[in-house]
């Protein structure tokens, strides 16, 4: 992937030069700056929610426009024996768990997920690095899963806990969206890509497609979905791996 920089690679370079993000005294970590960034992101979210009041869909593209190649970003192969065993058994023994502030916690095999009504959409993936590629995604709407599980009245966010470790100190990837985005009709958990089983490099067994938002929100290797009422107990408290360790914006509809 010459010319395509994965930010995981960048992090590696920073680690190599001994200046890893954690522990550095940084402008963005100081409260007023952090608050200003968060305020701006909150302002963006509220402004966009007003604009999106009619809940429009993102553009779906024709089959002919599917990208011949699709960049493989972030983790390409999750580390560890656990994932290897899952892969060797073609995820037969793996179950997606939906838990937290739900009425009926779920544990669904890939076959069970695939037996639910599916949604297929051809959309553009926009990475925050600047590139775009078009892919076809097949999966089950998150709204459908939440209809099965039920949501408690205080449910506010869906947190996606993943099977891959993107950082160097061993934390599994995690991301979160609020219910507004989670219940959007184009927000799906995809098990298929371009008409085939979702390949490992793109997030097998399951990846989130949250089409209203940018690349890093589309968590790969989703293992379980936790429904919560607040994000400050997740990770370092900002709702996602990039949000916690790179000060990325949490609401990424920009």
């Amino acid at each position, binding site marked *: 992937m010459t010319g395509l*920089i994965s930010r995981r690679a960048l992090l590696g370079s920073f680690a190599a030069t001994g200046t890893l993000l954690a522990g550095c005294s940084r402008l963005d970590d100081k409260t007023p700056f952090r608050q200003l960034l968060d305020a701006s*992101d909150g302002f963006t979210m509220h402004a966009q929610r007003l604009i*999106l009041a009619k809940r429009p869909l993102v553009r779906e593209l024709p089959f002919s426009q599917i990208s011949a190649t699709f960049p493989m970003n972030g983790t390409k192969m999750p580390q560890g024996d656990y994932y290897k065993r899952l892969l060797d058994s073609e995820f037969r023994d793996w179950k997606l768990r939906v838990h937290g502030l739900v009425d009926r916690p779920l544990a669904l095999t890939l076959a069970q997920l695939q037996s639910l009504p599916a949604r297929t959409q051809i959309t553009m993936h926009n990475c925050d690095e600047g590139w775009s590629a078009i892919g076809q995604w097949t999966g089950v709407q998150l709204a459908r899963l939440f209809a099965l599980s039920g949501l408690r009245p205080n449910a506010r966010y869906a947190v996606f806990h993943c099977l891959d470790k993107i950082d160097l100190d061993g934390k599994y990837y995690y991301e979160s969206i609020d219910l507004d985005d989670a219940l959007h009709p184009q927000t799906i958990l995809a098990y298929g890509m371009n008409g085939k089983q979702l390949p490992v490099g793109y997030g097998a067994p399951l990846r989130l497609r949250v089409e209203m938002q*940018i690349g890093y929100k589309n968590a790969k290797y989703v293992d379980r979905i936790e429904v919560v009422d607040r994000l400050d107990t997740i990770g370092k408290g900002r709702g996602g791996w990039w949000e916690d360790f790179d000060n990325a*914006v949490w609401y990424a509809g920009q």
Partner: protein
Amino acid sequence: MKLREDPVERQIDYRHPLPVRLWHWANAAVLVVLLMTGLLIFDIHPHLYWGEEGHAGVPAFVSLSGTHLDRDSPQTDLQIGSRHWDVTGILGSVIDDGFGGKYLLAAPAPADWQFGATRGWHFAFAWILGLSLPLYGLYLLGSGRLQKMLIPTRGDLRLRSIANEFWQHLRLKRARGESARHYNLLQKVSYLVVIFVLIPVLVLSGLTMSNAMTAAFPDLIALFGGRQSARSVHFLAAMFLVAFVLVHVFQVFVAGFFNLMRSMITGRFVVDREDSV
């Protein structure tokens, strides 16, 4: 407009009312932050494409890429259209990815750079640019300043006047007397282009890169001919704005740094007499 007339020495115009000065300086600061963060964002994927998609498998019309990455001293290749230049040491910085590979950035990044935060700051300051522009547009229209200061007069457009103006510009001659009291044609046109073309194009092409915004306003994509086209237009418009700022600042020095800075800070502009030295 005319505040005071000194028959002996000089004349002082109240040239820039408060909204003009506020917009000018707020946007000057905002543009510096947007340019710096924007270049850092471009840094991580220094390739421009036309159309919808754009990634490693798609031809770029502008591209910086590393060649001979496996060697000790990798080289940087700048491609514009079908032409290539070796820009090793001028543009591009090859970094070790820590996993046994090498990658190229358009420019060296700070060691503790947080890409995510860079985008956050870009959006935060873009709000100021995006919100102040329509307000300023309304002010220009409502106050009559647009008509009075910016729209070229019939006199401006006379061939003789245009030729004379180009000649004065080439000689870097400072305007004096009555002609110093008005913007000249080149000034008017460049300010109009910045306010009514470049900045709106920057704002709209920026919005076109947002999934949510294009869901709400699908016409944005058609306007720019695709998501990657919008990104490229965003970059090119930013470069035109940088060119404007460079010329603008240069002209401030030519035309009288002190007087022009005073006029954009206090509003008061001193008009030199025709025959002054």
